[in-house]
């Protein structure tokens, strides 16, 4: 009897001591050794006495969503779904029940919380004359641009946000400017660095990388009068979460100033909290007008077929 009691007590104490676990899905660049989510996870583990498992997908937001769908065990959190794709993942997530922080942009979503953001922009060489608007770009077909596929990159929404019903016609005119379209951002940027085009579509924060790590001001973003597409990266609580409270604690940590100060140099995006930006970011020009995806027109990407 005494033995049984001892075993029961031991089991009870073991279960009490068992660490809680958080399983987080994110794309590969967020989870590798230098990745933003990896750094956050390590820091959060120290604070929560919990274990965080990162599940990486080396692919796009859409493939990240499919990956979650394919996992029969499910997880707790998904991180890195771009705002363009949240409707595809809506059925996988649940209410975060966190008071929405004071974002620097308009964002109210019961399920998805923004954790960083940036504007799409054309990056060119410092010293060359860069167009100051899409209209100017279209008037100068000799300015060659390298684009990531407009259907997968947000460029399509950017153009549509500016031109609305005229998007198809403008897209046709833009063909004269296009040097090439690549499958991914990195292919486009790599070609740009090889001088294959005058401008590359990237993030407005890209020049900060060259400033920070190469001490170079050779590249700058072209600021367009019509505005820039706002790309927002989000996180959400999965319906399959076994530790929703712990997940919410993680969200609160991610949105804290302490965590947000990592965003700039780890992910080369802008933090959603009011934290001091590194010197390399203070040099950047930011747009005055933001363009967001219009939810009313889900078929807009067919224009770019």
């Amino acid at each position, binding site marked *: 009897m005494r033995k049984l009691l001892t075993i029961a007590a031991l089991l009870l104490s073991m279960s009490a001591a068992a660490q809680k676990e958080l399983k987080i899905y994110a794309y590969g660049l967020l989870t*590798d050794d230098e990745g933003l989510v990896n750094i956050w996870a390590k820091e959060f583990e120290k604070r929560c006495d919990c274990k965080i498992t990162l599940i990486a997908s*080396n692919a796009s937001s859409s493939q990240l969503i*499919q*990956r979650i769908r394919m996992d029969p065990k499910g997880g707790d959190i998904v991180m890195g779904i771009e705002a363009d*794709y949240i409707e595809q993942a809506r059925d996988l997530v649940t209410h975060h029940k966190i008071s929405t922080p004071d974002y620097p942009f308009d964002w109210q979503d019961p399920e998805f919380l923004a954790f960083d953001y940036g504007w799409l922009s054309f990056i060119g060489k410092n010293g060359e004359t860069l167009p100051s608007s899409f209209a100017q770009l279209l008037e100068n077909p000799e300015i060659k641009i390298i684009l990531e596929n407009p259907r*997968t990159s947000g460029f399509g929404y950017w153009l549509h946000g500016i031109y609305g019903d005229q998007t198809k016609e403008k897209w046709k005119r833009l063909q004269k400017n296009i040097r*090439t379209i690549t*499958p991914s951002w990195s292919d486009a940027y790599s070609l740009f*660095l090889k001088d*294959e085009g005058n401008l590359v579509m990237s993030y407005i924060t890209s020049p900060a990388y060259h400033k920070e790590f190469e001490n170079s001001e050779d590249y700058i973003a072209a600021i367009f009068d019509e505005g820039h597409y706002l790309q927002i990266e989000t996180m959400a609580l999965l319906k399959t979460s076994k530790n929703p409270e712990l997940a919410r604690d993680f969200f609160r940590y991610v949105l804290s100033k302490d965590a947000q100060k990592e965003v700039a140099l780890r992910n080369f995006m802008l933090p959603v909290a009011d934290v001091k930006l590194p010197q390399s970011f203070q040099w950047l020009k930011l747009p005055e007008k933001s363009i967001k995806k219009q939810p009313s027109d889900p078929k807009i990407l067919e224009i770019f077929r």
Partner: protein
Amino acid sequence: MKFVYTLPKPKFYGAFSLLSIILLLGYIVVFGLVIMNASWSSYGMNLLLQTIWLTLLCSIISIVLGYILAYMIFITNFIARSLLIQMLRLLMILPIMLSIVGIINIYGSNGFMAKFLDTQLVYNRLGVALGFCLYNIPYACSTFLLILQNIPQNRWLIGSQLGMRGFSLFRHVIWSDIIKTTKNLLLIIFFLCFTSFEIVLILGGGKVKNLTTEFYTAMSIGEFELVYDLGLIQIFMGLALLGLLSMTNIQSLQKRGFLIAPDFIHKPSYYLRIMIIIIMSLLLFSPVISIIIKGLSLDIFTIFKQPQFYDSLWDSTWVSLWVASLTIFIILLLCIYRKFYYIFLSMGIVFPSYFLLSMLMIIAFRLKIDFFAYGPFFAIILITLSTIPLVAQMILPSMITSIHSDWRLSMHLSISIFSWLYHILWLKTWRLLLAGFLISFALTLGTYSVLAFLSNDSFKPMMALLADYMGRYRFDLADQLALVILLIYIILFASFSFLNHAQKDDSHADD
């Protein structure tokens, strides 16, 4: 000559039939899923019709130029001839992104050729045509050279005695042998072009698209209706290919010809031939040479200081070893059960649909399998299926040739299957098998799409690491890693060339 096997003891027949049936069942299930979900819109058909002429034209150009180069090499003796032949094989197995980078170095906006000709050579239809041709000419050339080297010696002799030259020599001596291969080659190159993704998207400048580019894009943005529509066309085309290819037998090489054309065959001027060979070689090899030359300015040792490099090298190595072993095992079986060859060959064509639609199938049926816990396992299976067609094309005819003379003898002696495998197949063809092993290994090293989907932080092969570096603006490290991958290819390829050369020596010793 038709060549049919009857196995001494058909013990493996059942197991191999089962494997083929599983593969066919896979086709059927994916096919059923696609048919159920397709919206049968006309977009896919329009796309098919729009791109068919460019693909067909490029396939024909690749075949014509491949034949011209093969014939010039066949009738010309020059220093480094053997090296050139082997180098052509390297071009066939290089990762496509490396080839594209090389093509852009030479033919891109700042490339030597674009500046020399003062015109835009890539980022348009011409760019796609260039990419297709540069990628497929080596394949066509290697295949034609093998056929030319197997035309019976007496046919050349008779042709020469009858004073045939130029077109009459081609029509009466060569044509009957190359026509069968040409048909198969045209089909295969056509489908290789058709399933091309990066070449069309990057070198086409976004102005050219095909079924595969649209398929991947639709997958990326979750347009599943379009995925099913395009998948349907791909699968129909794959089945058509299966049907067309299965009408012909694999041509076994009989070692009856000349490795190099003898003097009595009429040949154009030596200088003309050399000039053609030099010009075509420069066109074909300049992209790879440009990567190496640009690589010389890189501080390649930085990559060796990165701990992730060794992890990814290890991951790539063990996955490649597994894929290569499985590929060789299946090719060995295909050597025996040749009727299943085309099932595997067609997999090369429908593979993008097969892979991506399999993923959709898992989602649709919510299978209770933790797919990603077994990511490397599934990656090995899928990459093996995509590797078999090319490796089989490269080594199967020579393997069949090597064992051709012994199979009947082994039947008469009623030896066991294991004795047969060891004494006939292994001892006669181990160098070929090893060469096939190295090719599979190299192809796996360069695979990205499957691994990108299935890899994670604890399993990150070199191509995934390359993509990571590029995603992190570390283009310096990406360039270094690309150069290291190219060097690994050159080492593997040098080993392959050595083995292939030794195999030929052995074959001649047998004669």
